[in-house]
């Protein structure tokens, strides 16, 4: 199987879906002539023209809103937010509009809409440019949240999302774009709502997604040296959420650590921990642990940023706390 980088896998998915369905089009800042801030849309304007790969002004609220309008009238837009941080500018369109309309209008309006946005910290981008806020949107009914961690997943899931009838927030991670992985040459789609066990193990379950999945795999490697076999589960989509796979894993290991890059307070980890105790209270051998970002605006200084953000070492510590 050929190896692709994550950004190339996204590019392929976009290319294939643009070629497959004339209603699909892309709009966003620097997506056309420049080929995307992270090279994700490289070559697409040359192939599909500036009507279908549209450069926009810096106007996130309008970018998402225009995509909604186009989606409700027969198009299948893919709106790109240069980064998740600017999705906050478009929050009203995403939360007040996209996520509500199908329900509020009694099912008469559908929004086959994908909003793509990379998020994440790690390179001293400081407080306004380091957001990992997927949990905000999981908290909002009516919009799906998909957050793949590998080139294989990102391609298969993005293609499915583009063909979906619902509004979907598709969150990539800036630090994952250059990572490599195998991607088959033949077409494939991955279903939403199906988690994957990325590494089997019997002693503890680590649930992690996006960049933290890779930190969790590193942690599992370190733990293996200590004789602890960690199972690493990647939900891949946070809404819909494949609780069955997660519960099945924890039922076997009886211990769970949830690792996320977003803030700890009321984060996705809190939701997962709550569900685990609802279903498995009497099967758990230890309290569910959360590894997450410190509840502070992300600091610039390198040493403080490292303290603020979770990593493999922090995951190892959380596991040791409940396995020793």
């Amino acid at each position: 199987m050929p190896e692709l980088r994550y950004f190339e896998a996204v590019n392929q998915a976009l290319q294939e879906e643009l070629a497959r369905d004339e209603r699909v089009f892309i709009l966003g800042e620097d997506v056309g002539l420049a080929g995307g801030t992270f090279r994700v849309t490289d070559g697409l304007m040359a192939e599909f023209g500036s009507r279908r790969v549209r450069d926009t002004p810096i106007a996130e609220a309008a970018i998402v809103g225009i995509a909604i309008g186009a989606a409700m009238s027969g198009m299948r837009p893919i709106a790109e937010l240069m980064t998740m941080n600017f999705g906050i500018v478009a929050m009203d369109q995403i939360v007040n509009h996209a996520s509500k309309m199908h329900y509020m209008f009694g099912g008469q309006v559908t929004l086959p809409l994908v909003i793509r946005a990379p998020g994440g910290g790690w390179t001293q981008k400081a407080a306004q440019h380091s957001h990992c806020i997927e949990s905000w949107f999981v908290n909002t009914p009516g919009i799906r949240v998909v957050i793949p961690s590998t080139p294989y997943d990102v391609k298969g899931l993005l293609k499915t999302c583009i063909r979906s009838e619902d509004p979907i927030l598709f969150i990539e991670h800036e630090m994952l774009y250059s990572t490599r992985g195998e991607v088959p040459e033949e077409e494939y789609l991955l279903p939403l709502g199906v988690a994957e066990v990325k590494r089997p193990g019997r002693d503890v379950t680590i649930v992690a997604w996006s960049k933290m999945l890779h930190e969790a795999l590193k942690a599992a490697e370190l733990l293996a040296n200590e004789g602890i076999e960690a199972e690493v589960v990647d939900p891949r989509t946070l809404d819909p959420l494949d609780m069955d796979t997660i519960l099945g894993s924890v039922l076997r290991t009886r211990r769970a650590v949830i690792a996320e890059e977003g803030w700890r307070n009321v984060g996705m980890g809190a939701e997962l921990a709550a569900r685990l105790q609802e279903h498995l209270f009497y099967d758990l051998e230890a309290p569910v642990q959360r590894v997450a970002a410190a509840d502070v605006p992300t600091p610039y200084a390198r040493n403080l940023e490292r303290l603020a953000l979770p990593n493999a070492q922090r995951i190892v510590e959380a596991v040791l706390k409940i396995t020793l």
Partner: protein
Amino acid sequence: MPVPLADQLQLYRNMALIRRFEEGVAEAYAEGFIGGFTHLYIGQEAVATGAISAINHDDYVIGTYRDHAHALVREISPRALMAELYGRVTGVCKGKGGSMHFCDPERYFMGGYAIVGGNLPLAVGLALSIQMRNEDRVVMAFLGDGASNQGVFHESLNMAKLWELPVIFVVENNFYGIATDVRISSAFNEIHRKAQGYGMPGHVVNGMDVIAVREECEEVVKYVRHGSGPVLIEARCYRYQGHSMTDPGRYRSQAEADLWRKRDPIPRLAKQLVQQGLDASRLDAIQREVNEAVQDAMRFAESSPEPPDEALYEDVYVESYGA
């Protein structure tokens, strides 16, 4: 009123300081001392230098992520700024903000912001505060051409005019928002005329000519300070570097870049000063002085400590409650 020679020399010094500072930043970035997003101001020196020279020290300035120059012209010490870039505790924001978030309220520099357009309503709020407190101050708010397409730009202009607030919007039109040419992002790209939609005067000035910027701003500041309401100034300029340190800037043609290089504001003023009879050795002395200031700032930054671990949880809130 023509700009006095002493002031012209000060303008020269500030532009030279900015350029040298930014060159120092590029070196330190390449050596790994500086991280994150770092946006240089090389090429645009005349705008911040000329504009801020036309206001009083206690008038407010508010900027964007491209904020090094504005902070320097506000006389924040190069040491405190460089240390901020190095992420050190001696930095102007204790190392927490970095390049895009300089701030020094004591010098009425009300911050750099990394969300395009995000600073504009803040500027209007500063002006509202001035009006409500009957203060003799104005606000000078900086933004880029790209920011003039954000919704919040239009909301801010409207309310500034509606309430006749003392704010000057300085649009630094360097013709690009990252890779996007203003001609494909703004339906109406005479940016100064966007002000007219709100009944606000809009002016255009050559942002490569510091004297022109200074003179234009002096007039405008007088008008705004007098209580006549907000004004927008479009300063046409060019950034010589990429958008940020990670951008090679391939979307711009060599011919275009060469053309703007010929308009470099620093040699331009040097030439004018010599024509006015100034001994060129004075300019060399200024260059040496700013070189030394930047070297000193870099040494200071490198030898400063990182923030202590406890700083992570400091300054999230002002007040604490038992928990």
